[in-house]
């Protein structure tokens, strides 16, 4: 049972790290701002989400698990809002309101 949990954790964390690396590569390599924002939000949401999911079975106590979920939710909320704001700024630059 504990072997299965370890495997699950390792798989989730590795998948999360993969999304972080992919997101970072996208941020560095993509040409336009909107694509870069897209790459970055993948790292924030999926990357951190998978790492948090992988760590969940390893923490002791429901309070620590809850903290992990809250951290992920807050980064999710902050990252999403920042992405929306950047996208709005790009749109205003492309066709400024009259």
């Amino acid at each position, binding site marked *: 049972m504990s072997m299965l949990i370890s495997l699950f954790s390792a798989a989730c964390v590795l998948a999360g790290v993969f999304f972080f690396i992919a997101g970072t590569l996208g941020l560095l390599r993509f040409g336009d701002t909107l694509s870069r924002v897209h790459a970055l939000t993948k790292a924030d949401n999926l990357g951190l989400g998978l790492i948090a999911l992988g760590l969940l079975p390893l923490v002791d106590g429901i309070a620590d698990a809850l903290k992990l979920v809250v951290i992920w939710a807050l980064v999710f*909320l902050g990252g*999403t809002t920042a992405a929306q*704001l950047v996208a*709005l700024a790009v749109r205003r630059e492309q066709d400024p309101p009259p």
Partner: protein
Amino acid sequence: MTALLLDLPLALGLFGAGAATLLARSLFGAVLGFISTGLIATLVWVRLEAPDVALTEAVIGAAATSVIILYVASRIGNRATPPAPPPIAQRVLAGILSALLAVLLAHALFSLPEPAPSLAAPVLDNIAPTGLGNPVTAVLMAHRAIDTLLESAVLVFAVFAIWSMAPERRWGRAPGPAFMAEAHGPLAFLAKVLPPIGIVIGVYIAWVGADAPGGKFQGGAVLAAMWVLPWIAGLVAPPSISDMRLRLAIAAGPLVFLMVGLMGFAVAEGFLAYPPGYAKTLILLIETAMTLSVAAAMACMIAGPPERRARP
């Protein structure tokens, strides 16, 4: 081996971020470098097993300071003519002095006696009378309370200094620029959703400081962010800088601290001494007032002096 795998990228990253800050061609790039340096320094403190310092670095160094300089950079960037770079002789001199300082610091670090001198053991031996579980808080609030008292007064003077930048005719207005409200924008959404959660987290960080990493500065900074966010989103207007409630909130922490300190003459051994058995109660009283003051003062520092200019 694992330690090296973790520490080497951190050390190189810290150097890299510092170099990127100094060598950045644009002001905005330099600010981003500074923010990255703060974030990596936070991780370095975590690796050095100093979570209290890491929390402070994250909240004050990487977050609050970054917001302030990002705002300043965006305003300077709008100017037509950038300031002229200093003359070459001044830059060379600054470089030589910095290199000299680095060498001296490295020399001091490498000539430390083994084991390094530490007061950690006496602090842990004398933690019981304070009723606290976190030795860092015991040092800040009991053993070296005078330093923390002076530190808390600095916040009030910083707000004075910022407010005195306001032109005469704007005195008595609300701090900071006037932000336009966007009723359905993403920022307005965040400013409505986040504060209830953030206030609980800020109070929790301040409260847990008695027994675990956390405390008034870290918790107060989170509360300040939760106060500033609805201002920036244009949902609420900040109070006027001549509002007595705002001024009292900023001064409450140092005032309570000073009063408890003076009370020490009457009921304990002297200035800033706590009567036996009441140490934790009094420390919590000071911490509560200080959390309020840190939140109010930092919110005013981030907002800046009163100005009329509206930002969309």
